């Protein structure tokens, strides 16, 4: 089940905690992986760990010209892009009343606009192939909201609406577009939370623990597989029960 042999997957944010595990799991299922991220060093380290079937594709997603170029670079390196995982995301938290235009725009640009452009960039190849899988990483806060994260929550809710709209348009071409919405996962991003914030969060999670990155990766593998061909436009919430949506 979930064999991805012969499929080429582009993963953004592959230098981060969740992205690296997504790349590992897709690779373990037989896919060739294009590892994209801003920092080259961790990408090279991941490539060395994975061995064959791995390519490093550095890209700063706040640089829109670089974003436009990435799908082409990935297709040149791997031969095609059959699976796109838009995992990269940034936060720039602030109280809504204090949030600057720059904080708003930079988060929307990377989390939503770059996702839009990458989806668009891989669509031609997927339409021709009559097969494609797009998995956009959203967040539980896109559905529930979160104080201090108006920009992040808006971008992650936007990803869901965009994914559904695109899913409608391309479903007849064998392309599925889904979202995975992680809850609180142990990564560098959630390490920044204070102990007080963490204990507050823990009280809201029925599972009583934070999630592991590989639990997100497993959801991505499923949605990338041939077996999930009839699943499109959905959001798979992986959050230990903290929001049962």
């Amino acid at each position, binding site marked *: 089940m979930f064999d991805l042999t012969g499929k080429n997957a582009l993963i953004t944010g592959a230098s981060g905690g969740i992205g690296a595990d997504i790349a590992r799991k897709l690779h373990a299922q037989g896919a060739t992986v294009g590892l994209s991220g801003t920092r080259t060093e961790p990408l090279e380290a991941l490539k060395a760990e994975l061995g064959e079937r791995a390519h490093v594709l550095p890209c700063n997603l706040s640089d829109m010209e670089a974003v436009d170029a990435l799908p082409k670079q990935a297709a040149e390196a791997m031969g095609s892009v059959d699976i796109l995982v838009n995992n990269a995301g940034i936060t720039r938290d602030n109280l809504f009343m204090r949030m600057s235009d720059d904080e708003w725009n930079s988060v929307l640009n990377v989390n939503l606009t770059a996702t839009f452009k990458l989806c668009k960039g891989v669509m*031609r190849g997927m*339409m*021709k192939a009559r097969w494609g899988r797009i998995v956009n990483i959203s967040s539980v806060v896109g559905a529930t909201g979160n104080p201090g994260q108006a920009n992040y929550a808006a971008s992650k809710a936007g990803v869901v609406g965009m994914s559904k709209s695109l899913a409608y*348009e*391309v479903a*007849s*071409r064998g392309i599925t577009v889904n979202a995975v919405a992680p809850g609180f996962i142990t990564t560098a991003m959630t390490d920044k939370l204070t102990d007080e914030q963490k204990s507050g969060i823990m009280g809201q999670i029925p599972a009583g623990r934070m999630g592991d990155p590989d639990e997100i990766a497993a959801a991505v593998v499923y949605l990338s597989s041939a077996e999930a061909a009839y699943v499109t436009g959905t959001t798979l919430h992986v959050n230990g029960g903290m929001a049962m949506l």
Partner: protein
Amino acid sequence: MSDVADRVKKIVVEHLSVEEDKVTENASFIDDLGADSLDTVELVMAFEEEFGIEIPDDAAENIQTVGDAVKFIKEAS
């Protein structure tokens, strides 16, 4: 029919699975040949590849009939 028109016709017949004699110059992709909006996007992609040209989005919107496509391609190539 010119060479361009023949090649356009062939692409349309293959892509939309329609009878060749229905693909006339004035035939509208959507109204006469049963294309949906995404089919028209794919047709434009196929024309771009067949003729080695680029069809910008605003021009693509104006290509609604077989004749429109032939005219655009002749001017562009």
